[in-house]
């Protein structure tokens, strides 16, 4: 985990998008991305899917409710 997520994000967003940090609340929400980073770290290795082509729309159809009501 980077020690200063806020500074890293500020530089990254300015560099890539030309967007400046708009307010203090943005800084706080950016700091909270540390939780997202932690979430991705926790997920690593926990999901054992083959990296084959997949489609979310196809998954919706493959898992659909087949007992048509009414």
């Amino acid at each position: 985990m980077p020690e200063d997520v806020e500074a890293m994000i500020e530089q990254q967003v300015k560099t890539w998008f030309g967007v400046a940090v708009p307010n203090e609340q943005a800084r706080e929400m950016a700091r909270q991305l540390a939780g997202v980073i932690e979430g991705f770290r926790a997920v690593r290795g926990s999901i054992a899917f083959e990296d084959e082509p997949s489609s979310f729309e196809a998954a919706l159809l493959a898992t659909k409710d087949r007992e048509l009501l009414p």
Partner: protein
Amino acid sequence: MTPTMTVAATAKTDTPSVAGGAALLALSLTEAADAVARGEITAVALTQASIQAFQQKDGPLNALIRLDAEEALEAAEGLDHLRKAGRLLGPLHGVPLAHKDMYYQPGKPNTAGSRIRREFHPAHASTALQRLEAAGSITVGALNMAEFAQNPTGHNAHFGDCRNPWNTDYCTGGSSSGSAAAVAARFIYAALGSDTGGSIRLPASLCGVTGIKGTQTRVSRYGAMPLSFSADNVGPLARTARDCARIMKIIAGQDAKDPTSSREPVPDYEAALTGDVRGVRIGVPRDYFFDDVDADVGAAIDAALKALEAAGAKLIPVSLPYMEAVATYGSIVSRCEAAAIHAEWMRDRPDDYSIHLSARIYGGFAIPAAYYIEALSRRGPILKAFADAVFCDVDVFAAPTVRSKVPTRAETDVDSGRAGTIAAFNAVSANTRVVNYLGLPSISVPCGFDARGLPIGLMLQARPFGEARLFRVADAFQRLTDWHDAMPPTNALA
């Protein structure tokens, strides 16, 4: 030529048989529509009642952005003439509706609740709204909403916060704030909302009405302001599951203008409303959805599930797989997509956003593309694994729509800069946004009140394209209980 239905030859044709606008607006959408079809009341009477309600009572709620009174009354007169001639446009003939101000109508401003789009005049029309009007509905105006449909509370710095009809100090929920408030306050019979992370179900829950987001791809998004290409959904808020079922039947289905819309056939949802839940297996999650649930909320959900059990449903504890991944992935998809959509305005007009929205969008720029792609690429496989593990044992699973009591507007006012507001703001949508990642259909129905008199919502999920099953259970619940009939105290509307 517009298809029409034939009216029964015995239909009355003159003045309304029910006196008073409040009495008319106390009807449900389906009751009102069916009464118009039978010739018992007129479209003009319903529309006048709705317009008057907005004009006389909306001040404290601020649910309305624009009222199109003259145009609506002209449309109502035309529909009454048609009905007298024995023709009905469809199952919403003569029913006034109003919609979140993000559904495009050519020639009319479409603000999306924003300063940036205050003068935006789209050239094309929303498919969902067109389908509702083709079914005979009348559009009386445009409703307040969270700026660019991007907050779960209903705050709006540009048009003013929409306020909860049960107590105006409290959040309506967002982003379809005006839709829920206007339906709860009996200004209109139903409204379109949109749901990317809970924006239909949250305000439905907080305001005590019924709202459904269909399966991802179920309803065309053409002509609706985009927030997230992967997670946006169009859907209704109304008082009852039956009302929502009628609207969903009309708006769902393939649309050539929206290539992401599904070709799956649309069932007759109202025909599925048998009231019978005997043998229906209702999953009660062991994981995630009940974490740190408020005591009042937990008790209301428990009572709701017991009511369904007493009617013959089976309650089955279920474990939900991959919820940590679902919550993590689900937290970034719409943020990345919103950042992409708003990048130019965030560069050029950052001061035209409210504080909380620019703060929220800003973080989206910092999420690496590889994470975004990981989240999207695993969405299908996770859905398959989730469905295989959960829906082999249960038909639907239940959860509180919101784990906490309805928050006050002050508690969640991020723009104020007060400590704790961001956490309270983010917590509101914890249960809803994960469902958007999975793409499942999800409905919220009123199931009680907390100790302060604010509504509580029960949320039900089914397999993809299982909307009929949700409507059946929700309707059965509303036959067993009367939470959906409760009306907000009139002192809030004085």
